[in-house]
Structure formats: C-alpha cells, structure tokens
C-alpha cells in the first residue's frame, strides 16, 4: 500500500534503531513522552519498543480525545439524552467510556435514549436535515484535528438555517495541556514526540514557547512506526547536544504555520474557554474552546438547560496518573483484572489510543512478564 508500506519497513526500522543504540548515552535515562494516542497505538501495534535500548522509555501522554474527557461531561450528555427528545450523536469510542456508576452512552442507548454513533460530523447534519421535527445534538470531542470539522458544520447549519442542530462542545487545545504537564515536572520528561495531525492544523510554531520555557526538545512525529523511530533518534540527538528546539520529522504533512484556513474557521466559530476540566490534569486554564455568542443558537449548552455533573473518580483507577505520564498502566491494581476492554473502569482502557487498552490489547505478553 503506497505511502504506508514505506513507513513500515522492518529493515529500515532496524537500521534506524541501530543508530539510536549507537548514539545513546548508556550512562543516562531517556524519558520521551509520546503526546498522542496515535503514537502509543503505533508503538504497541508494531512493537517499536522491542527495538529500543533499555535506558530509553516511552512515557504515554494525554493525547487520546476520549481519555481526557471527564466523566461528568458524559453524564451531562446522558442526562440531556434522557430528559429531552433529542438525537444525541457522537464518535464511536465515546459510546463505551465509563461515566459515573457504571453508566455509559451505550447503556443509556440500551435504556431507550436515541444515541447514535456517527463517522463524521456531516452525518449529524444529515440527521438534522432528515429529522426536522427533532433536535440533533452533536457531542463534539477532540483536539485541534476534529475542531475545524465541527466549526464547518456549525457554519453550514447556519447557512442552511438548520435550527434543530446544536453542538455540545468539548474541544480541547494541545499546547495548553503540554504546558500544564511540563510545568508540573512530575513526569520527568526529557523530550516530546509531538502531535502529528494536530500539528498539521496548528503548525510547528505552536510549540516554540513550550520548548523554550521548559527547556525540553520536541519533534513533531508522524504516526507510522518509522516516523516514531526517526523522531526518537532526533530527540536522542537533541538531548545529547543539550538542545531544546521544535523539529519537524512529519514534514510531509506539517508546516511551520499550519493550516491557516482551518485556523481562521476555528477562530470564527470558537473562542477560548477560561478554564476546562480534563480527566487526569484537572482544571487547565485556556485549554479548551466554546462556541462564540454570535453562534449561540448552535450551542447545546445555551439551547438546553444542561446540568454540570461532578463524578467521583473510580476507586483504584490510576487513569489520571497515566494521562500525566507519571504511572504506567501495569502499575494499576485494576489493570487486566477488574478493568479490561470488555468492562472498562477507566477511560484509558476504552479507545485503542488509550495507553491501558494499548498495553492490554497488544502488549499483554510483555506486561505480564513485567517488561512493559
């Protein structure tokens, strides 16, 4: 398969990994956070860490959209679906994420709420057109990658006069989360494998402050396994040379300034939220967006009386620490016992981009040997 196989070549991977082994300083540890769940998935699916030296460790970051959404927001959405005659639609993985008390969107659907899985926000627009007598609410989540499509949908809805379409906005911003993690210092990170698809939108300049303020190198890395290994080599070199720059390995998709058209679209529809609650990170200032007053008619939080729900964390679940890069999934007492992909207790066990699900599904032979 063109443009994919080239980036999964095992021989090239071993050669690149050989360079990492040659250049790495055996007297120190290298802790690199892969920010995105896409990287975590690639590392486990292809067994990238089998090729890495012992003293190089990948620390998993918070870049999994369903993982960082606090359970309270899901509960709010369930309450909306159960109290009003709405069609609530959202992307797939979110359907299974545990809300409080063992509930989930899937379970609310089974109880009779009209909750639908869609593949694209344009499906939500189609639903609104096909059901003019009903309210269609799109439960929007994700980083800057999924934000422009939501913005486009709101603009289309306004131009078509689709008055029965609203968005429950939960879009979050990557650089703010990165600042938050680096500022705390608790994950002891020596370098970051930077987001790939997010960076295609916001551009590589967006991380310059982070690198400078926390003296931490960042390499924007594609999601294919060779991308990850090459970016890791670039990070090793920066660490060895004492550099802390933004470098762009994923130059086939990411530019310095990003996608200006998408940025303009986001700025037209959304404005910064003063603060937003993240699972794991807590309240992070300026880390999310909300719909501008000019588009309030398409804001589900304005249209409906939505109750902010607070949900206590699941007892024993260490998802918050995993999302901050402080703990590994195997450190959790619930991992592979009470918490499995079939019966997830924490959000990180749901999506294949979640660190716990990646460990469980792809790395259990390793995890159980204590070598994860």
């Amino acid at each position, binding site marked *: 398969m063109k443009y*994919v196989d080239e980036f999964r070549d*095992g021989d090239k*991977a071993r050669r690149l990994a050989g360079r990492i082994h040659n250049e790495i300083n055996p007297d120190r540890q290298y802790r690199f956070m892969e920010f995105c769940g896409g990287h975590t998935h690639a590392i486990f699916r*292809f067994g990238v860490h089998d090729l890495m030296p012992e003293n190089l460790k990948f620390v998993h970051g918070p870049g999994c959209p369903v993982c960082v959404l606090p359970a309270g927001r899901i509960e709010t959405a369930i309450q909306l679906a159960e109290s009003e005659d709405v069609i609530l639609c959202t992307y797939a993985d979110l359907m299974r994420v545990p809300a409080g008390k063992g509930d989930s969107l899937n379970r609310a659907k089974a109880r009779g709420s009209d909750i639908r899985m869609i593949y694209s926000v344009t*499906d939500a627009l189609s639903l609104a057109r096909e059901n003019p007598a009903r309210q269609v609410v799109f439960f929007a989540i*994700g980083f800057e990658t999924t934000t422009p499509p939501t913005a486009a949908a709101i603009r289309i809805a306004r131009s078509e006069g689709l008055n029965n379409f609203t968005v429950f906005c939960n879009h979050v911003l990557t650089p703010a989360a990165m600042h938050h993690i680096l500022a705390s210092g608790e994950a002891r990170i020596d370098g970051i494998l930077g987001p790939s698809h997010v960076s295609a939108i916001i551009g590589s300049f967006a991380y310059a402050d982070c690198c400078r303020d926390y003296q931490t190198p960042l390499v924007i890395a594609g999601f294919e396994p060779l991308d990850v290994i090459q970016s890791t080599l670039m990070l090793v070199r920066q660490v060895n040379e004492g550099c802390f720059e933004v470098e762009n390995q994923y130059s086939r998709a990411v530019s310095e300034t990003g996608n200006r058209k998408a940025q303009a679209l986001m700025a037209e529809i959304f404005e910064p939220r003063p603060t937003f609650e993240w699972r794991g990170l807590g309240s992070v200032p300026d880390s999310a967006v909300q719909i501008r007053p000019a588009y309030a008619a398409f804001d589900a939080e304005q249209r409906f009386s939505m109750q902010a729900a607070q949900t206590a964390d699941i007892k024993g679940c260490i998802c918050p620490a995993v999302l901050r890069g402080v703990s590994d999934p195997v450190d959790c007492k619930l991992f592979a016992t009470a918490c499995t992909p079939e019966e997830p207790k924490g959000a990180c066990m749901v999506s294949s981009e979640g660190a716990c699900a990646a460990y*469980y599904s792809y*790395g259990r*032979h390793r995890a159980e040997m204590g070598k994860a």
Partner: protein
Amino acid sequence: MSKLNIKSGLVEMAHGSGGRVSAVLIEELFVRHLGNELLSQGNDASAFEVPAGRMVISTDAHVVSPLFFPGGDIGSLSVHGTINDVVTSGAKPLCLSASFILEEGFPLAELEKIVLSMAEASSLAGVPIATGDTKVVERGKGDGVFISTTGIGLVPAGIHISGDRAEPGDAIISSGYIGDHGIAILSSRQGLEFGTQIQSDSAALHELVADMVEAVPDIHCLRDPTRGGLATTLNELCKQSSVGMQIREVDIAVRAEVRGACELLGLDPLYIANEGKMVCICSQKDADKLISVMQGHPLGRDATIIGEVVVDERQLVVMQTSFGGQRVVDWLAGEQLPRIC
C-alpha cells in the same frame, strides 16, 4: 386463490397469519423457488432416512445490513453460513431449514430476489432446504428480512475434528485472503459508502473441506472465521484447547484494498468478518499435504501456514509483526469501531 403481486406488492401482516394469504406466499415464492422432494411433502415436519454414523447440527441467524452487498446477499449468505458451520466438523451437509422473519412493508420483489439467491446457493451446494417457516412483524420491528437457517450433516467414519484438539507444535493454516466480506459490507453500509472493488467472499466450503478431510483424516480443528475475524477464531481455539499461538503477519493474506480501507477507517483486518474462509489446525507432518490439497481447490487457492500452536498457560495469540516486533492479537472487545482521529 388470489395471485401474489410480486412485482409491486409488499409484505403484509396477513402474509404471516397462517391463513390463505400465507399459503399463497409460501406456494408462489418459497415452494416455487426452493422446491425439492422434502419441502414438497407439504407436512409440518419433513421426513427423511437417516444414514448410520455421527450426525452434526448447527444453526445461524442472519441479520446482515445491507441485505444486498457486493458479492452476495442475505439469501446466499444464510445458506453458505450454515453449511460452513456444519462442515467445520468435517461433515457432509445433508439439508437445511430456513426461518424467515419479514418486516411489514418489505417489497415482495426484493424478497423474491433473496429467495432466488438462496435457491441458487442451495442447489449449487447440493444441500436442499427441507423445511421452512415465515413470520411477519409490524413495520419498524424488524430490519426488512431476518433469516435463520439450521443445517444437519453426516460425519464420515473416523473423523474427529474439534476445537479442543489443537496441540503444541501443530500448524495453523488459513485458506486465503481475510477481511473481504466485512469490508464489502462496510463499503455499502448507509452513511459509510466508499468506492471499492472488494466483493464478499461468501461461499459454501463443503467441497474444499471434503477434499481436505479425504487427504488428511486427522485434521485437529476447523473453524470459519466469521464475526470477529481471524483474531477471534484463533483466540477461541486457544481457549478451547488450552494452548497459545504464535502467528506471522507476513504470512496472513490481506488484499491491498482491504488494508487500505482498514487504514482509513482505523480497523484491523484480523478482526474483519469472512464468509468463505476456513482456519485449519493439523499436525506439522500433515501440513504440507493439506496445503497442496487446499491450493488445488478454487476456494483454497491462497491457503498458507500462518503460524504454530505453542504451550502458553495464558492462552495468548502472539504475532510476529511484519515490522519485526511482537504483539498480542487479542479477543475483539465490543464492536470494532473506527478511531476518532
């Protein structure tokens, strides 16, 4: 007795009433197309002679959406699916039953297409539909047509194929390209239509299996990797036989189009359904003979050895990736869903 308006008529509640209207539907649609000696007996129960030996029985409900897809439809699928389940025991399939649950308002013309497709599949396979039933549910309470089929088969003497017989050292064989059926279905599903050349692999595997059993009577396990795909089938066999498996990604045949569609949708071909493939486990000494017999049949042309059974108390399927690493190939958790970004 009134005639059935197949061209523009719709399924009505009366078609399931058991009265005269039902009788017309059965006569003009089902018996007309599926008719055979057993069905023509016209009794509530069809009678036939039972040969001596071990019999097997298997049942399968078919609820596919859409009903018509590239390479097949629910009619042929309901015949192939159950024949394939019967032959996983090494049996020769003898006959099938078919139960239809029809939704009020379903076009009779489409129902006829489905029944014709069943008739063709059943006659090509030489496995008659011996008995049937029709029920109608109100509009909105079904999804057009559901078909449940049950099959009976006769196991040749001396054959004992079972999911608990995989032994460490055994070879694991896959009969060909995986994922075609699931991707063909997804490509035509409402809301997700994408252009592809992929056709469902839906096919009856009784001849292929008969050749295999004749060549190697001591086949240990056979299973058709339908829902949940190859990954789920291998995990089922590991659990049933209390063993582990080591497989090699490079030896598992996946078409470029299937890989491409999976990449786009964030799916893994190992978990995509097949309807014309067989996974076979046998002694290492029989593997080459079996592969050559399989490759001699059109439905097993691309058969390969994809790995070995190993000792593993954890009963894991571990795959050597083509990239050079190792990973677990786990059970499917819930539905396999596209990733978000």
